[in-house]
């Protein structure tokens, strides 16, 4: 990651684990060999993302310090895996599966419907910051295609009507 790219993912405010996150971090420390703190790299990125909604450069620097590893080790992991958000995203993240079983059962129609309904394309966030739409690779719910993951939860056997029901009742 270049210096410019790194600058673009700064939150411009300090990062630290909250009390609750710190408690989880201390628990995690007991689960891996004492001399293998680097194993907490992915778990810590998850903790940071759970806490802030995304992973900023400051969070990565903080994790590197806590794990006593070079910050590049954290950057390279955060940028390799697709689920870490390096920028803030919408309150609701819609991840629509685009892989074969879902495509065979009508993924394209669902994508068009969501895009039209929210006025965004995959990769975009609505102006009010409520929804981010992504197309993702197979989520292992092939028997229930077409399907989407809305934040943590799977919704299967989607139809345009079903999508409306799910999205319209969100707080």
């Amino acid at each position, binding site marked *: 990651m270049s210096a410019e790219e790194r600058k673009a993912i700064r939150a411009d405010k300090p990062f630290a684990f909250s009390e609750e996150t710190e408690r989880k971090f201390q628990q995690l420390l007991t689960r891996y060999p004492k001399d*293998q703190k680097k194993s907490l*790299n992915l778990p810590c990125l998850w903790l940071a993302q759970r806490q802030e909604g995304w992973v900023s450069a400051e969070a990565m620097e903080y994790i590197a310090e806590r*794990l006593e590893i070079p910050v590049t080790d954290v950057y*390279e992991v955060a940028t*390799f895996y697709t689920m870490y958000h390096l920028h803030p995203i919408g309150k609701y993240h819609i991840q629509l599966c685009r892989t074969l*079983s879902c495509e065979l059962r009508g993924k394209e129609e669902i994508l068009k419907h969501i895009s039209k309904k929210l006025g965004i394309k995959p990769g975009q966030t609505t102006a009010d910051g409520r929804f981010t739409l992504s197309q993702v690779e197979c989520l292992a719910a*092939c*028997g229930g295609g077409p399907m989407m993951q809305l934040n943590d939860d799977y919704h299967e056997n989607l139809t345009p009507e079903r999508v409306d029901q799910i999205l319209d009742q969100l707080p």
Partner: protein
Amino acid sequence: MTAAVELKEVKVLSAKYHLKDSFTLEVARQHGGYSQIDKAFGMEPGDIVEEVKNSGLRGRGGAGFPAGMKWSFLPKDNDKPVYLAVNSDESEPGTFKDRQIIEKDPHMLIEGIIITCYAIKAHDAYIYIRGEYVAQARMLQNAIDEAYEAGLLGENACGKGYRVDVTVHSGAGAYVCGEEMALLESIEGKKGQPRVKPPFPALVGLYDAPTIINNVQTIASVPYIIEHGAEGYRKFGTEKSAGTFLFGISGHVEKPGVYEVEMGVSMQEFIDKLAGGVWKGRKLKAVIPGGSSCPVLNAEDVAKCTLDYESLMENGSMLGSGGMIVSDDQTCMVRNLKNLLYFYQHESCGQCTPCREGLGWMYKVVADIEDGKGKMEDLDLLLSIADNVEGKTVCVLSGAAAMPCRSHILKFREEFEEHIKLGKCPFPK
């Protein structure tokens, strides 16, 4: 071809699935959960390895390697800890069976882990679960917490004076981490880039220590083998493909889902009877039998295949992870291949040039054909790229893309040619 095994649903792994709250320790225990711990700890670890070897249990993650034999590769003299890594990355398109085990009977998996740890002399097990399985990771953790509270896990697991600790480690969206060496890299806090084999993980695995990596379904099958013995397990399936399998079926069928059957049943009957046949009264065109990397079969092949390792191999494909993807007769096979190649080029870890460059190239050529911009010589070009990426890289991901590419062209060449001649896709969008 030998006669197919009679098609009926069996309940080895899925025995508790119909019960209310089957995922809880209370219900699991009422229905035989953890009942094989006493018997297992009454055996010598080496005898458990032998029993699993004799049972014919093969890895359910895709490669089908005999589980007991894998365990026997651990070094005899070893002063390092031994680790168990349970592969719950489940990312191969068409595969969604391990999710059932985690959601419906996680305690069967934990019981399998305890017995396996004892058998291979491990004390620490890591369950590597794909990052998207947030709810499933939580369910698994709840079950593990219950097991700790009940004294089934921990310093004195099940009161046997043997320590077993189980940790759930979440991935973060990388298909390649289902590859065993990439999985270990990911637990170690690194990018999921596979390591060169040999050395194999049984000798040099997690933290450079001997490590056994098995799929969720493989480990969940262990308690049954302890209870009924190798012979009891072998009552299911065929001679070379023993036991039962949680087959997943998706795509153009009336009743997609996961069904447990003995290995060796007819593929056609499985599709027609359990999955309700091809949807909308249409005809069958193609089946990808065991996850998207397995070579595609046409309707004629399907009629000949039984669901076991040997039959699929004889018919030019693989049983893989047992996830069948069915396409009806109105499906464009070029579009199917384009979808799959997009997946594989997206998931290449970028470590090896043939894979990083070759898969993207294959995708672009197939996308051009689908969009009506293809040339006849593109077909030979695709076959040539497929040959030049497969087997030229650290792991098998490039081969996983080459196999569907090659087989789609060989089995459905006329569809590719029609796209090229017409200058457009002949199928409705």
